[in-house]
């Protein structure tokens, strides 16, 4: 094993080990231990970025060229190998996961939400991190499915244990709905593995060894499974309930990275393994994505609760990402990767801020809030920044994904895709309308519920990296896209 392979295993292992240790050690210093492990997990992640430069041994024929990979046989009868690898497509999401988990652990250390013990929450956060990182790093389809499932129950527990008043129902809905998606994913994964005789993603990418019919069937299963996770309209209704009830850190992880497993899966598995199926289904996917953009925006215009509004805004934003993917162009897939990361940063920040406002005002009803810029100017400024970033202001991270979703749809050409481009652009204008409505209700106007202006150190610690990265990715989008053009081109049929 060379150093990068060790790093690769450590990326997944460190949070898992941390979770194990934490559950055995006394609860007293749980916050510090969890934060240390979350920070430690960032070290191999940062180190892996340097592996990108060593990438000169591009293997001929294969569509995925990991910067670093580990391939150990595990259960050969099930085609299950412990095969991890990182490339330009997965790396930004891996980094985002590491960052957001660290911020969430630090935030929990400072202010644990009411409910179960903080230690258990931290353990769950670390398990979640391990599962999500494993999903992004898996290069074996069965392993991908296993990691995909690992994330499900911890998230259920986070919502059910530390959520709002209606948490049990919301958590149940979340877990049953996504379990339904997972079932389809399992069938799809097995279909592919049985027909192709391997579950190795490197070998499978490009659709080798699969007939047209198998690809169609498998893609249909994958698409529905990932559409539930992403979520794609009309399979989205678990999301608003889950977000509204989840504690702040739960919402941040859920919106920031958990949803990205759906879009990442669609790119890596859907486009990669079943390209013919993707081509066949792309018009339907595009139509649903445009519907998601418009439906999400319109529903947001009528929302009266802060977190629910932000949750629905995710439906619209992920609609842009899915539309980008559905165009099946290099421009589109790259825009999707950017949109993924941007949404993770910006919506993560929005949920942190919404949580801060709800904690202080003890209400999230827009009608009861107001005048935030009078009582808490700094908080109002940050909320304004996050909202303006989320509505896709050029120069900030959200712009690239959304604008180039439109460009990609125009590039795909034809009547249908041109109409979808127009609808997506109109959705962009509606996005501005509902975010400004939100700002007008929360920051402007007479003071509704007074909000304490002081911002704690832990809050600055959790928020400032997100603010800085939103600006940085907006100005230098190649931070995310630097190493994506080759792997993405390999995916496009």
């Amino acid at each position, binding site marked *: 094993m060379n150093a990068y392979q060790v790093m690769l295993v450590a990326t997944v292992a460190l949070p898992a080990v941390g979770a194990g240790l934490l559950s055995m050690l006394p609860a007293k210093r749980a916050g510090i231990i969890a934060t240390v492990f979350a920070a430690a997990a960032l070290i191999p992640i940062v180190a892996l970025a340097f592996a990108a430069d060593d990438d000169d041994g591009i293997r001929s024929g294969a569509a995925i060229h990991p910067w670093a990979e580990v391939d150990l046989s595990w259960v050969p009868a099930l085609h299950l190998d412990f095969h991890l690898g990182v490339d330009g497509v997965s790396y930004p999401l891996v980094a985002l996961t590491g960052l957001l988990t660290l911020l969430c652990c630090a935030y929990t250390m400072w202010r644990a939400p009411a409910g179960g013990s903080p230690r258990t929450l931290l353990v769950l956060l670390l398990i979640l991190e391990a599962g999500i990182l494993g999903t992004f790093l898996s290069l074996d389809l069965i392993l991908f499915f296993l990691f995909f499932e690992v994330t499900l129950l911890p998230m259920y527990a986070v919502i059910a244990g530390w959520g709002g008043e209606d948490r049990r129902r919301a958590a149940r*809905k979340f877990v*049953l*709905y996504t379990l339904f998606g997972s079932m389809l994913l399992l069938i799809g994964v097995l279909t592919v593995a049985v027909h192709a005789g391997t579950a190795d993603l490197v070998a499978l990418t490009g659709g080798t060894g699969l007939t047209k019919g198998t690809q169609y069937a498998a893609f249909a299963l994958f698409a529905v499974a990932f559409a539930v996770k992403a979520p794609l*309209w*009309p399979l*989205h*209704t*678990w999301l608003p309930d889950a977000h509204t009830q989840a504690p702040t850190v739960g919402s941040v992880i859920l919106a920031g990275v958990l949803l990205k497993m759906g879009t990442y899966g669609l790119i890596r598995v859907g486009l990669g393994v079943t390209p013919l199926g993707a081509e066949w289904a792309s018009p339907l996917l595009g139509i649903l994505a445009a519907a998601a953009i*418009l*439906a999400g925006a*319109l*529903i947001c*215009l*009528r*929302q009266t609760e802060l977190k629910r509004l932000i949750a629905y805004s995710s439906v619209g934003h992920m609609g842009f990402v899915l539309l980008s993917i559905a165009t099946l*162009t*290099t*421009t*589109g*897939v*790259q*825009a999707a990767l*950017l949109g993924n990361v941007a949404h993770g940063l910006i919506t993560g920040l929005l949920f942190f801020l919404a949580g801060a406002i709800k904690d202080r005002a003890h209400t999230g009803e827009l009608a009861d809030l107001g005048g935030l*810029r*009078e009582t808490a*100017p700094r908080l109002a*400024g940050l909320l*304004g920044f996050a909202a*303006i970033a989320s509505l896709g*202001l*050029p*120069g900030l991270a959200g*712009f*690239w994904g959304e*604008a*180039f979703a*439109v*460009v*990609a749809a*125009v*590039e795909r050409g034809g009547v249908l895709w041109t109409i979808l*481009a*127009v609808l997506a*652009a*109109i959705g*962009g*204008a*509606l996005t*501005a*309308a509902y975010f*400004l*409505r939100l700002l*007008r209700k929360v920051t*402007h*106007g007479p003071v509704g519920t007074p909000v304490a202006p002081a911002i704690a150190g832990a809050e600055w610690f959790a928020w400032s990296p997100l603010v800085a990265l939103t600006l940085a990715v907006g100005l230098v*989008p*190649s931070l995310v*896209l630097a190493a994506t*053009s080759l792997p993405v081109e390999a995916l496009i049929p």
Partner: protein
Amino acid sequence: MTAAAFGALIPGAPLLLGLAGLLIRPGDDDEHHTPRRLAAGLGIFGAAVALAVTVELLLGATMPLAANTHWIGIGDIDVTLGFSADLAALYIALAVGVVALFVQIYSVAYLHDDPRYAPYAAQVSLFTGAMLLVVTSGDLIGMLVGWEVMGACSYLLIGHDRRLPEAPAAAVKAFVVTRVGDVGFLLGIALLAVDAGTTRISVILTHDYGHGTLTAALLLVLAGVAGKSAQFPLHTWLPDAMAGPTPISALIHAATMVAAGVYVVFRLYPLYAQSPAALAVLGVAASITILLGALSATAQDDLKRVLAWSTVSQIGYMTGALAVGSPAAALFHLLTHAAFKALLFLAAGAVIHAVGTNYLSRMGGLREHMPITFWSFVVGLGALAGLPPLAGFWSKENVLAAAAHATDGSGPAPVWVAWLVWVAALFAVAITAWYATRLLLCAFFGISRAHGPDGPDWEVGFDDAQYTPPHAPHDPPGLMRWPILLLAIPAALLGLAAYAPGFRQALELADPHLGVAVVLPLVLLALGAGSAWWRWRAAPGTDPALVLGPARPFLAAGFRLDDVQNRLVVRPVKQLARLARKTDERVVDAAVEGTGTGTSWLGELVAEMHRIALPWAALIVFAGALLLTVWFGVAS
């Protein structure tokens, strides 16, 4: 460092200093003056750097300047980070820099007791940088960044005043209406970029587009232009935007942002010249806007709204000039308009500062108390109306001449468009003279109406400087006075620059020719101004707008286009949103919940069936067995 890379400081300095300024703690307490001074320093320094670099480049560098570097490649589309400027662009940058610098200085005094001055100054800096980015960007995406950041800053600044209940709504309206136009702008850019494979402007201008693609793309870009430059039918946000502090109106709603649309068409003019259809649409919108703005301006009681509607109308002159194939005249009018309209707004700020109201019906007799402000108004309004030899006369004359010239079919646009623009522009000359005269008379002549019919207790409206009016109005303090005085110079003399060969070549302006054609607009001007004055003489102290009679409320409401917009766009969208939410809850989510409850119900049913008594169970088993036997018996 090359001159072009040096030029990146023009937008860069205000943008960076603006971002830094946003980090300053808002000085909520009175004892701490440091944040306030720091904010003012950063703001003024940013504008000054941009201005100095512009002047330096204008004097020293060889034109045109261009530098660009790869920004990012997304798919097959190459996005560059580029600086590109010729003399015309630098002249615009000069105008922006001058107005921005004066507005920053003026704001120090105007917002002297505003606790949220620090973010205000930073936002003005960001705004200035964004406008300069639009002017100097060599890439469409860079231009779009400036374009939208400007919109966002405009939103923040219009909503700045905490004590105006209408300010937040006006801010939202300004951003959303322009954003609706930007739907087209983005799609237009996408069409242009996808076909050319890059967003670099110099490549796009020389790219060979298909006829259909080009016309579609240019029309879509025009939607964005109409939004930003307040052209019919997307002009409705500008009058409401007057809820912003007055210096902001001078910067955003006179000299810069509303001119950005005109500049974008100017920048892409080689493409527009190939598309008569796009120019025809532009010309029709311009003609409607010219008359709509001018007529609405006649009936306003709010001083700033008169100026806002006149801006709408004057921008119409610029787009009209573009439509008839004379980008030079458009740019010339843009420059003179920036000077005299910024002057008018800053002077209006001085009036509002002194009398504590925006309403003309509560002013009057200010001439003796505020001589400097009065004479500034005379210069500004004279230039607006096109009185020789003030700046507006020369540029308006250029627009009219270009339109008249194009009526012989020599321009890129159809002949009827030229006629339309020419006639509308001529009519508007008379109307402009009329409302300019009315404004001057109502505000500065006659007797003071400061104590209205209901006594002195009327202190409402856009008194955005948190200010108790003094007993006797007076000219503003130095920090406000000097910007006004200095702006009066270009407002008066800039027109004569048409005689300077260097300037004329930079804009590719035709030689000034004062032939017989000048007579017609001058006669109309005299007619307009004279009739307002005659009315004032006939009934001293009464508002000449009374002559409008029953049409006045209709004109004052801007032809009720706000209502139309409400009925056609806002309400349907709201209803659609309600429908979407209901569908989401009662159909989509209900189906999911229904599946859940259905499954539990089915489970209960099956559980129930397991509990039935033995005789019944036995009977069912036997019946089943019988059924199967018969079934298979028949089948075999």
